[in-house]
């Protein structure tokens, strides 16, 4: 496969796939870039010509910009901490031999199969509703005033809903990692006099390092773009307007495609900054 002709043949054969994929990615990207330099108001005159960096300046200087960035980071960070923390715990529990292990494992995985819109609706109406929700009933049972979850604790509620959806993913990856831990290593540590917590800290956790890295990287990519959960629950109010949601509002509610596109470019930049940051911080775990 290394001769000159076989290599150029390979290139030729791969070309259609590469061109298709490039087009798939490049066309939307280029269109976003183009629109971001235009004043484009579909219902108020359409394409009104080039405006340079005006959209970019307006997007950042809007009072909603920085709160949206921080809301995004808080949600991503909160969900990561909860899913990784609980994921490790659950993985350890599920790895213990116990009765009904198979069924319990399927139950733990099942939230992942529920669509985000559906799960957000279920949480909103069945659990967090201040009148009929399960939480409200529990609060009333103990004589407390029910909390209006989505307005009084909006951020926590959304983090809770999203964590519930992503916990199975984290648990699944971490469980497979824990299963590959050599039992003799734990036994050696036990003979060496390590207490259960020390065994966890010195043997299990380092073993999980790589899996945790994978969970953090993949979840971050998806969590930066969460939308349905916010759309269905708070509609971006009560401080839950993330960058994605802000862009959506600019394009569809304000009918300002140019401004939204500029926001889209900022979102790409933010995602890349976070990616570089993560790679620096945890990426070295991957090449051990």
């Amino acid at each position, binding site marked *: 496969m290394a001769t000159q002709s076989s290599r150029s043949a390979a290139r030729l054969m791969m070309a259609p796939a590469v061109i298709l994929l490039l087009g798939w990615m490049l066309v939307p990207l280029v269109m976003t870039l183009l629109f971001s330099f235009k004043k484009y108001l579909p219902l108020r005159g359409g394409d009104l010509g080039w405006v340079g960096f005006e959209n970019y300046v307006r997007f950042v200087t809007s009072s909603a910009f920085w709160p949206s960035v921080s809301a995004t980071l808080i949600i991503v960070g909160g969900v990561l901490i909860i899913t990784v923390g609980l994921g490790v715990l659950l993985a350890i529990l599920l790895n213990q031999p116990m009765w009904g292990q198979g069924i319990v494992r399927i139950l733990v995985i099942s939230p992942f199969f529920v669509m985000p819109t559906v799960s957000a609706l279920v949480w909103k109406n069945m659990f967090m509703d201040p009148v009929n929700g399960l939480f409200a009933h529990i609060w009333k049972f103990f004589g407390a005033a029910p909390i209006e979850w989505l307005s009084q604790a909006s951020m926590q509620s959304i983090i809770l809903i999203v964590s519930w959806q992503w916990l199975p993913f984290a648990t699944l990856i971490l469980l497979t990692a824990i299963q590959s831990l*050599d039992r*003799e*290593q734990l036994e050696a540590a*036990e*003979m*060496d006099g*390590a207490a259960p917590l020390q065994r966890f800290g010195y043997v299990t956790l*380092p*073993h999980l390092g790589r899996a945790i890295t994978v969970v953090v990287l993949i979840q971050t990519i998806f969590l930066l773009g969460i939308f349905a959960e916010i759309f269905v629950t708070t509609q971006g109010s009560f401080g839950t307007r993330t960058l994605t949601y802000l862009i959506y509002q600019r394009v569809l509610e304000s009918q300002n495609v140019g401004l939204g596109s500029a926001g889209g470019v900022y979102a790409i930049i933010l995602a890349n900054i976070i990616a570089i940051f993560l790679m620096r911080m945890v990426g070295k775990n991957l090449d*051990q």
Partner: protein
Amino acid sequence: MGRITLDKVSKRFGDVEVIPPLDLTIEDGDFTVFVGPSGCGKSTLLRLIAGLEDTSGGQIRIDSQDATHVPPAKRGLAMVFQSYALYPHMSVRKNIAFPMKMAGVSEDEQNRRIDAAAKALNLTDYLDRRPGQLSGGQRQRVAIGRAIVREPAAFLFDEPLSNLDAALRVGMRLEISELHKRLRTTMIYVTHDQVEAMTMADKIVVLRAGHIEQVGSPLELYRAPRNTFVAGFIGSPKMNLIDGPEAARHGAHTIGIRPEHIDVVEENGTWQGTVGVAEHLGSDTFFHIHNTGLAETLTVRALGEVTLSHGDAIHLSPRAELIHKFDAQGLRIE
């Protein structure tokens, strides 16, 4: 000190009794080898002594202290695992230091013991490497180093050499024997390789299905195997075990004769047959002999290079005084 006594120790996994009640004493300073076929319970027995498995009955005493319910770390035993079980994310130095760190040994003392162990085991140049960057033999030495620095009452080895190639295995075998001679600490060594058992042991414990078949020094087991199982297990190549009329002629149900105790003679041998496969090792030659009129194929060891080839006729004479006799239950008749 490290005298280990097992008193009616038994082990059950669910309904399966892997180790029926068993008594055994391992004297202080002895190199004891547990040997037996795969699945006979050697590892289980070792893990019971280590405390990694709970006993189903009986008592384990270490230096006449009851240790049956003492957690593994408090028994003062160190174990070397078949997979080495090194901590992959720690350097060799940290691996060796780990048990001392857990025991709260001072930093200076730690370094002193690490350096001594590294020197004894030729690991000085590798102290800053990770286990993943070492060869199998070096990893094995790190695992031994980690055991030594604890200064245990006894060492437990579970098939420590089975992942090494033949040449390295011979080398490590010597190193472990050397270590035992130097430290004079009790060692229990599990293997299914009877050559390792014969060469290293002060005392061999032959196990079958959780039962102790015989305990004794290598030569005792070689000279006077207590039953046909031990007779067939100890010695290489295997002892020839012959049933039927030939055995009855000696007043036994089964007779055994080791390949090295059968002489190749010019004529008038007790047995005559044809040569099958001949295995030439240079120092000696193993012949497999067919058509002797016996049901079994005979194995014969001839010293040096004997020029007999496939299909040749051969005359054999067993040395009468070295024939082992066994009764119908397979037990030795003196």
